[in-house]
């Protein structure tokens, strides 16, 4: 059995659909059996609300939820009390924009990039409207990578936060995080990394990355949907006011007012996504047990083969940087005269699942000069058969559509 086949065998949806060529892991990765099993085991064996229940079931739920927090902390090489469970990356980014955003003053600058997903774009535009902060953009180069020559100009001494993606969800372009961090540190700014497109390719080390906030989603890294993680440095979280008010986030409440709980509870108002967090913990535990070097080598080789196969098709314009090692295994392309939704519809009929459109990155697409594009994204369960099927499927789609 090949390495990919052995991995696929652990993904129930892929086992149930042997003819499926799944190329949409950048939107939602398939769920690993350990995560699914952990959710079922939790819901059937330890389902209760967390916090302050004294019966044994509630204590079991507390232990499972806190164990998931420990897993997320190990996955990021961080302390558990710096891990906030959220509804997903979008919720995590909005939390920072709201809570850290409260600490900013008119005239302060927030820097993002042109390559951001709308979830790391719109919350900052909303903050600009709310607080009068200035929003500045790191432009992209024609290959979708960030224009590092602009950093000294864009990240000026009014900058308080630089919030950028670790990899583009459209081009796969990897951000030179060290360059961003160095530019931010020169002016005393904090750095937030959107890890939504990085976590499906292995554990991360926020200490080595030297960032201040890190956000990701469970459904992008083989876990359940509806749960995500915000990591923040302890001293930053401690200084931030709560975002949502409700149960769990308070110290005490009187008719006159309330006090805040310490982080991470301060940022987890209401009943959290408990079983989802437990499932995410299981997915992260599984990922931490893998040997990632050969997986990365295979993902990178498949990505290069995919680029090669697509390049041979007339009228296909590939987006993103070369060589393929400069990107996460994501390949987006435009075919002159054909709309991505039509392409995806015909690919679907051949068992190929791809996404077409603006990929929630309209500013990036505008900068790259395309209205919409078709995206193939790879994860550890993709194999040579997938990569061989896509160019053939596209040639057939062109035949149907032209």
């Amino acid at each position, binding site marked *: 059995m090949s390495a990919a086949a052995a991995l696929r065998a652990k993904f129930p949806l892929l086992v149930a659909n042997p003819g499926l060529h799944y190329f949409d892991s950048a939107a939602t990765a398939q769920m690993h059996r350990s995560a699914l099993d952990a959710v079922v085991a939790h819901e059937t064996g330890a389902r209760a609300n967390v916090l302050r229940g004294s019966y044994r079931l509630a204590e079991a739920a507390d232990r499972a939820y806190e164990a998931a927090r420990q897993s997320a902390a190990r996955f990021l090489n961080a302390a558990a009390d710096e891990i906030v469970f959220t509804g997903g990356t979008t919720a995590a980014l909005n939390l920072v924009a709201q809570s850290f955003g409260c600490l900013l003053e008119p005239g302060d600058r927030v820097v993002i990039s042109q390559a951001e997903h709308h979830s790391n774009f719109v919350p900052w535009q909303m903050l600009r409207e709310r607080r009068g902060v200035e929003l500045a953009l790191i432009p992209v180069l024609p290959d979708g990578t960030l224009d590092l020559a602009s950093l000294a100009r864009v990240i000026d001494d009014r900058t308080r936060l630089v919030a950028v993606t670790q990899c583009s969800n459209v081009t796969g372009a990897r951000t030179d995080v060290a360059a961003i961090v160095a530019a931010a540190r020169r002016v005393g700014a904090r750095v937030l990394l959107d890890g939504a497109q990085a976590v499906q390719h292995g554990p991360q080390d926020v200490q080595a990355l030297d960032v201040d906030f890190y956000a990701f989603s469970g459904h992008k890294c083989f876990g359940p949907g509806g749960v995500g993680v915000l990591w923040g440095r302890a001293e930053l979280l401690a200084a931030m006011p709560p975002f949502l008010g409700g149960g769990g986030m308070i110290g005490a409440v009187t008719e006159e007012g309330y006090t805040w709980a310490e982080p991470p509870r301060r940022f987890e108002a209401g009943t959290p996504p408990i079983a989802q967090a437990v499932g995410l913990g299981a997915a992260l535990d599984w990922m931490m047990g893998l040997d990632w070097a050969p997986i990365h080598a295979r993902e990178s080789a498949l990505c290069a083969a995919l680029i090669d196969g697509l390049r041979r098709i007339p009228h296909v314009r590939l987006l993103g940087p070369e060589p393929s090692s400069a990107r996460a295994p994501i390949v987006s392309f435009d075919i002159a005269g054909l*709309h991505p939704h*039509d392409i995806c*519809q015909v690919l679907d009929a*051949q068992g190929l699942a791809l996404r077409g*459109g*603006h990929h929630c990155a309209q500013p990036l697409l505008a900068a790259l000069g395309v209205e919409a594009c078709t995206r193939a994204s790879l994860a550890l369960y993709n194999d040579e058969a997938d990569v061989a099927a896509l160019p053939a499927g596209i040639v057939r789609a062109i035949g149907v559509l032209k």
Partner: protein
Amino acid sequence: MSGATNAAMGGVEALYQEAIKDYSRADHGHGRLDGAVASVRLDNPLCGDRISLQVRLDAGRIVALGHETKGCLLCRAAASLLGKRAPGLDGQGVAVATAALEAILEQGRPPPGDWPELGMFAPAGAHASRHKCVLLPFRALAQAIGQAEAGSAAIHGANHRE
């Protein structure tokens, strides 16, 4: 190639039948209409289809229609069909055609006798995510007529006038 794939390919070939491609290529009514009494731009925000459409009316009837449509084949074919068929219709005629198209997509009903061309969209009925692509030009035309009939009343909501 499996039997399931052959069946699916048959379905998708029906979806993109020659009539759809012919209308899309012909792009009847393409271009911005100068001196129009109403102008509407509509987007399908989830898929990125976009139409900019203008009409000129005389005594409540469409005498000219112009549109610029960026989108998928289904959206462009629908806009082109309106470019060909809308002149001569009044608001009621457009509403009747739109209702017939919705019935084709959502209930699998046959096209009415005076709108046989709408039958080319029947295979899109099986793909709920594509209904909005087909309907976008009809929605834009309905708004444009409403705008013309209301004089220069502003269009509110997510959509905006040019």
